[in-house]
């Protein structure tokens, strides 16, 4: 029987999660300082903001800066608490406990980043509650243990209020356990620089892409649920850099992902073809 067991070698476990080179990150405001203080004071952090505006990039940058392993969990509907905490596995004819990502971070130290936490079911998210107050413990029910978090452990979640509907929202009791760093799309100049750096397009193209994004973002709540993210701009840039015709690139990277409505799609297409 093939076993998935990882050898219990703490250093190796962590090694895997270290960010080995400095990620490119342009600070928007004072988020780097605030985050550093939060880490030192052992306060959990919530990154709030629309998708694709640099939350994930920021967290890996901070992990590098603070020299902490980064364990990321992309939350989804079927995520169970065992997926976070851990479970018993078989090794040959023995059972072996395997830590889940959250437990790994608690036990060995590091940032545990729960991305898009609203996507997870509510009963899954409650396992993080005891970690967010000053006890900083994680109960391992199956092993009947209480695990005390290392000093170097930090819990970070991300949350996109744009998705918020009655059917899907974060419980107040969860929200109120974090300090919040608000993220928004970078300012014009920063965004151009980011797009140039990440995709390699020229300044001129970057400016055009940024202009298009500006127009799209202005249409939020006037027919669009969400404007085009920095990530989408970069995708468009990458396509352009690789020889795709610019309007086609924008169409598939910036229009199709944000609207299914044919009329709105046509409007966006026309905006693009006016600017390019």
């Amino acid at each position, binding site marked *: 029987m093939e076993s998935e067991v990882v050898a219990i070698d703490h250093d190796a476990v962590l090694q895997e999660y270290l960010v080995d080179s400095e990620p490119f990150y342009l600070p928007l405001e004072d988020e780097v300082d605030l985050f550093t203080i939060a880490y030192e004071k052992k306060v959990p952090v919530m990154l709030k903001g629309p998708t694709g505006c640099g939350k994930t990039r920021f967290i890996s940058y901070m992990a590098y800066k603070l020299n902490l392993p980064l364990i990321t969990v992309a939350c989804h509907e079927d995520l169970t608490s065992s997926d976070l905490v851990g479970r018993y596995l078989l090794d040959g004819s023995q*059972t072996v406990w395997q830590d889940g990502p959250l437990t790994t971070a608690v036990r060995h130290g590091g940032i545990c980043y729960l991305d898009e936490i609203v996507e997870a079911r509510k009963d899954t998210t409650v396992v993080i509650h005891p970690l967010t107050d000053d006890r900083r413990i994680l109960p391992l029910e*199956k092993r009947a243990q209480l695990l005390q978090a290392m000093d170097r452990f930090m819990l970070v979640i991300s949350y996109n209020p744009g998705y918020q509907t009655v059917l899907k929202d974060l419980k107040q009791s969860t929200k109120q356990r974090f300090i919040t760093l608000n993220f928004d799309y970078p300012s014009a100049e920063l965004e151009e620089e980011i797009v140039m750096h990440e995709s390699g397009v020229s300044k001129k193209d970057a400016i055009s892409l940024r202009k298009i994004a500006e*127009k799209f973002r*202005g*249409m939020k709540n*006037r027919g669009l649920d969400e404007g085009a993210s920095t990530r989408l701009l970069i995708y468009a840039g990458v396509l352009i850099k690789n020889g795709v015709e610019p309007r086609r690139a924008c169409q598939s990277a910036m229009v199709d992902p944000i609207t299914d409505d044919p009329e709105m799609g046509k*409007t966006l297409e*026309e905006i693009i*073809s*006016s600017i390019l």
Partner: protein
Amino acid sequence: MSELETKFRDKYDSNGVFSTCLDELSALVDEDGKEEFFKTLDIVDSFSKDTVPWMLKSLPSLLARQADSKSRLETLKAITSIGRAKWSAVVAVLNNLDKVCNTTDGFNIEWLNHGVKISCADQDAAIEYFNVSADVMEHLGGKLFAVWASLGEEIATKSWRASKEYFKASPSVLSKIEPGDMEQWARLGISLIEKSPKVKSKHKAQSLFAIGAAAGQAKQMKLGINYFKSAPEILGRVSISDLSGWVEEGLSHTDEKKEKGEAFFSLQTSKSRSAVDELVKGLELNDVHGVLLPFAEAFTGSKTPIRSSSIFYKNMPGLSRFFSVTDGTRIYLPPQVSIFADEELNFKSYKLSLIHEIAHLRYNTFDIGTKEMSALSGSHDSALSMKIFEFLEDERVDHLTVQELPGIARDKTILTNEFTKKLKPDELSMFEYLSYGIDPQDKAFERIDRKLFEALKKAMEKVKCDNTSVMHTLELAKSISKEIEAGNHLVRKTEERPFYRGVIDFGLIEKTKRATEELIETFSNRLAQKGAEVEAADILEAITRIEESRGIDSDSVLVHLSDSEEISYLFEETEQMLEEMESEKNMRRTVHYDEWDHMLDDYKKSWCRVREIDMVPTNQVCYDAALKEYYGVVSQLKRHFALLRPDRIKRFFREERGDDIDFDAVIESVVERHAGVTPSDRVYIRREKNLRDVSVAFLVDMSYSTSDELPNGKTIMDIQREGLVLMAEALESIGDQWAVYGFTTHYRDRCDVFVVRDFNMPFTDEIKKRFDGLKPTGQTRLGAVIRHASSLLARVTSRIRLLVLLSDGRPYDLDYGNAKYAIEDTRKAVWEGQQKGLSFYCITVDKKSRDYLPYMYGGTNFSLIDNVEALPVMLPLIYKRLTT
């Protein structure tokens, strides 16, 4: 002194009105004329005493406007015979006499004589005739007016109702077609009136009830009536010759079924509308409006309504197009563009026109106004100076646009190439040569002033810089005007603008600004008098919304209304809209739904407007009282329902992945390995939350009838509310997803769905306080409400999705057809929901409903509760039966 004279002198000369009138009259007409006048007075006097003094005052001055005493006598005679038909027609004549005298061709006695003939056929038609006459005269001129009036007479003799619609529609129709096409338009209607009896005659032979020609006719005539009613709307879109195609198609539907034909001609069916759509040439603003509006707003960054410019310009062949123009807020675009054969090119042309108008707004053309522009009017040829200014200013803003939006430059090149390809080069105007950058051949300078051309070419280079303003343009225009003053310039055809450019209208900008401010001020004063303090911005928002709701080609701009009656009406609407905006604070959204018309066998498009509103929490008294009254039942229910709650966790054994180890499987697998068999790797236990996967929405009737009192002193609504309270408690203990919506309707544009609790709202005291808001108010338009509740329920993903309707009677609303219509629409709405995988159940206390319930909801999907008072206890039991 005649008998009548004495009579009126006694009656109306208290303050000398009568004498004054008579003095004036003596100078105008002879004795016969006076006698005629008294006759008319006599008629009016016997119906409306208040009108007589008014007539005494106004008539002499009106008569004075006519040339001689003979025509005055004729006028008076005509008025008398009109008065014999109906006294109020006289008022219509006098009201309009002045206007008619003021038209270009002036008053003509034939105007009255036609009126006399029409009033013989029908008085109301005659009144309509008098009211539109002045307007029509301006459109047609004297000669064609006579034709128009005779056609009206002809129609009136065939169907007075149709003639009324004919007159009513005329001003608007004539603003959309050429005068020469008027007759064809009228004839089509006449032929339709004539054809209708033939259509019917097939049936008439067998019908015992069709006694005499008149019996069947009243119905058949409607085709013609509806045709004239719909004409203004259609003729804005299709040419007169295409209209006959539409009429033919309509007749073919009439062959199938009478009602269908009528509905077709009144544009109520989607078939009829799509038939019109097919006839339309080129691209219509209606079709691209949805794309252009957000496009415009993305560039202006503010609300920028787009309207049809047909309100200002006629589709005249000489001009070959409607122009676009902006009034500073709105942008008016042509109702259709058919410059190119290709649809995409026509669309691009729309876009270019739009972006050009936006450019005027963004690059501040309107920093100056009529005051600054008056500097140009002093010049030798002020119209030409204005053209020069407009051209240079257009070039300036276009240049800035292209700087910022290079994509527009590409579109412009493509379009210009296509556009000029169709033309011979010498067909271009001077402005076109310059703007398109095409060099005119020498021959062209026979038409074009070379000096002006060169001057403009130089000036163009100057405005195409980055730091220009409209002031620069104005200065340039001034100096060019001066320069060419002496020369002899040929401008005739040279005035044509490039095809996508509209008109700069400083007057319109200023008028709109002023009118908007005045209207807001008037309204805000009126509101203040009523004790309401409303912000100017809110009034503007309300008016903007009303305008929006009237559609892009309504024929008025609200802020320009001058008629005091229309303004009063708008004020009322504004008040309503402000109220609606206030209630919108609780409003979640509005949605339009189609309604099923079984007679047409078709949906009526976007017929009902549903507003989804958060119920306002008031107090918890009702909720707690119900809990107290049914204390025993509640705790029993809770226990009962808790038992239904399934094991929270279900375990699946022998799984490939899972949280626990399945030891039985492990042992087997070990044995297998020792036996040399490939061991199974399905050795885990997977645990899964086993939710009872049920979602239910209760849809509660809040119509007036639920205020009926029962023997125990409670109303039906009280009972329903109690039932819901018990339900809520039971549902919380079983853990099902639930929602409660109340509804009430009042005509098709006011169907309100109140959200007491939506799915996944936390069940707090705030929510319990909302139950109190379930109160009897309006009617029961079930179709629209069911459609909306269905779409709310369809959002949740449960396996069982149930809509429970609590009602006390049949579907009904003031404009919801007859019982059959309402039942058919409800049935259709239920069917649509079932197609989406929803289940329906109706619980009612109306005994009479046994006849149609099975038909609406199908088979057994309903309960009829005989003892209403038992509803609260019954409800949870029925629910339990339905979901287990």
